[in-house]
């Protein structure tokens, strides 16, 4: 199972990185979104994986998943959302100002 998660993280990172390195703003933002998915999964996995344990305190339960990484991921998700939103609007702004979707502000060719 851990292998599968690691593989997923790896693929997400690879896809995200590849898209981030593209020359137009939209793929870059998509790449950033993929990267944030990868980050969330990674951060979450850092609390180790646990299947079928209760998510809230129950009198009869003794084993729980590590809640801290979950809280961190929540924070990270929110922040990534704000950042992505900003980035995409900025991409629009750049298009408005430079007339181009190219990340370096040159006219699309």
């Amino acid at each position, binding site marked *: 199972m851990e292998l599968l998660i690691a593989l997923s993280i790896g693929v997400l990172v690879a896809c995200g990185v590849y898209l981030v390195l593209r020359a137009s703003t939209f793929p870059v933002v998509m790449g950033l979104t993929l990267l944030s998915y990868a980050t969330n999964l990674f951060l979450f996995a850092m609390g180790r994986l646990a299947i*079928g344990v*209760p*998510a*809230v305190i129950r009198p009869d339960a003794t084993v729980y998943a590590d809640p801290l990484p979950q809280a961190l991921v929540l924070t990270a998700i929110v922040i990534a959302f704000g950042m992505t939103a900003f980035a995409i609007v900025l991409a629009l702004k750049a298009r408005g100002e430079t007339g181009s979707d190219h990340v370096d502000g040159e006219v699309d060719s």
Partner: protein
Amino acid sequence: MLSMVLPLAFGMVSLALLLSLYRLLVGPSVPDRILALDTLYLNTIALLILFGLMQGSPLYFEAALLIAVMGFVGTIALSKYLLRGDIME
């Protein structure tokens, strides 16, 4: 008995998931892919409820509820994009 059929049910829903993924992969048209995504949402709800049954935990309900509510918005927005481009006007 439930515990016996659950793996089977999981298998069927997983297969459904993969079939939807297939449609997502091959398209061919954009509405096809939107439909595939919509179906993925449905499959996911089923999967979640099955999880809940397997774990005996009611905590998966909200996720299902949310998908039912939110997935709809996604599909609507995508369809409207095809129709109007400007989804909020």
